[in-house]
């Protein structure tokens, strides 16, 4: 294992320190317990948005703290959900009296830890609501699993719900917008290689040189099935087919197309995937109105990508276009 680290045990801590130094104008970093808040949090009158999850998905979530998106982010250990003793102070710091929305990816650990923290925050008089993100179509049979995972759609939920909070929507309205995004977005991912968790030291699963893993999540956990390597267009078709079917995309739909890198795939390859995905959507009669291409929710140094499609309406489009200023997303200001 070759990694640019000092000690596997200090990876999260040192990375967050660096993040705080690099973006001192945008965020404040609390080191013990670890959480990141928007520089001007809490923002008077505004609903607070807090998200969090295991580290290793950077720029998620700290990279999305700032105006127009999150008020606080809580990173756990690598691929491990944060704990209530971090989530609670982050929630209190984000609360300006209008309540706080937790944006939680649907994984057993994240759900349990955020649930506990929400109970503790309620006990301190904070109104907490939760938006659960579960956009991963790779998980087919929800009854016999922990349910669909939160993956690429999380970035879109955080941006659009963040814009709703920024324009002054109340607690229930922000939750409703977040849930509407989640209901209209689906994602499917592929891994060309596994990734190596620093403290584990070996790749999180074994994949032969000529094999790819379809339906991966973002924690280095294996996917649904394994097939021989194909070209970019073939893989794109394979990822997009279940996304469009599950979303019931029909002629006339306007969508946001999000091609996300898992950390180890060059942007040039992501654009090859994007190009094909636009063709496939056009064949289905849908128009790509907005786009996002890049490494926005990663799995350490894994090679691979995920494709997310969000069905847009006028309001969601306007909220997507609204100004945002964070370490990883910035436009309109």
């Amino acid at each position, binding site marked *: 294992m070759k990694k640019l680290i000092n000690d596997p045990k200090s990876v999260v801590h040192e990375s967050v320190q660096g993040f705080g130094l690099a973006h001192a104008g945008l965020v404040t970093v609390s080191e013990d317990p670890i959480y990141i808040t928007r520089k001007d949090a809490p923002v008077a009158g505004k609903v607070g948005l807090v998200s969090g999850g*295991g580290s290793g998905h950077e720029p998620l979530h700290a990279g999305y703290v700032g105006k127009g998106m999150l008020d606080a982010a809580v990173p*756990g*250990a*690598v*691929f*491990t*959900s*944060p*704990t*209530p*003793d971090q989530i609670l102070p982050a929630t209190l710091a984000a609360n300006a009296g209008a309540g706080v929305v937790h944006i939680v990816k649907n*994984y*057993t*650990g994240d759900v*349990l*830890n955020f*649930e*506990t923290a929400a109970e503790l925050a309620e006990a301190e008089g904070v109104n907490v609501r939760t938006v659960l993100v579960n956009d991963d179509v*790779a*998980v087919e*049979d929800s009854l*016999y*699993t*922990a349910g669909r*995972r939160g993956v690429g759609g999380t970035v879109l939920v955080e941006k659009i719900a963040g814009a709703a909070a920024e324009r002054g929507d109340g607690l229930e309205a922000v939750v409703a917008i977040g849930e509407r995004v989640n209901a209209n977005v689906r994602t499917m991912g592929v891994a060309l290689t596994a990734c190596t*968790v620093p*403290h*584990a030291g*070996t790749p*999180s*699963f074994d994949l032969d040189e000529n094999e790819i893993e379809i339906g991966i*999540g973002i*924690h*280095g*956990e*294996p*996917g*649904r099935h394994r097939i021989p390597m194909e070209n970019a267009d073939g893989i794109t078709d394979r990822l997009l087919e279940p996304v469009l079917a599950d979303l019931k995309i029909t002629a006339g739909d306007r969508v946001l197309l999000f091609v996300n890198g898992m950390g180890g795939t060059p942007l040039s390859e992501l654009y090859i995937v994007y190009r094909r995905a636009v063709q496939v959507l056009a064949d289905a009669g849908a128009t790509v109105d907005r786009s996002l291409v890049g490494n926005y929710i990663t799995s350490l140094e894994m090679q691979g990508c995920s494709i997310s499609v969000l069905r847009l309406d006028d309001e969601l489009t306007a909220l997507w276009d609204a100004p945002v200023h964070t370490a990883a997303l910035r436009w309109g200001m």
Partner: protein
Amino acid sequence: MTVVLDVNWTVKWLTLCAQAMAEHRIELIELDRAIGDSDHGENMDRGFQAVLAKLDEATPETPGAALKMTAMTLMSKVGGAAGPLYGTAFLRAATAVGDAAEVEPAAWALALAAARDGIVARGKAEPGDKTMVDAWTPAVDAAREAADGGSPDLLSVLVAAAEAAEAGAVATDPLIARKGRASYLGERSAGHRDPGAVSTALILRAAVGAAA
């Protein structure tokens, strides 16, 4: 000498739990690598090291106090699903034993049942879902059976629970996971042992060691 479940036993148990997690850290990481996300060994080791540090700061006065301290520490230090689940388990056990200075074998069997019920309530897993519940449930049944005997002694209750948990962990091998991160694998989760069931067996085996 008859073993008594008092605060000294509890502290020794927790110390042995920390030892076991450190010794089996890599094994738990490897089990989790196969069907999860490679973090269980690291998280359990970190959590129980934090429990050891708390025990160094102050010695608890009762078994219940030691269990409650453990619950709060695991909940805040472990993360993942294991943190809230084990945290809830130790908290329910602490509530079950109350502030007694010594816990009778039958009462301990009830505390184990309360711990298991807490895990089921939080994680919503059922027996057969390939989770730590598959180690806890046979352990609770075996402990109750041992405690129901004519003159139950503590050691036989602890041994019964540990052996049943170990067998329960082995029995997760062929199961298809229906809860937790392994559930995403569907049928591909069969043929692997559940890491949470293994850490449960380690904890209950350490309880036997504390009575030796």
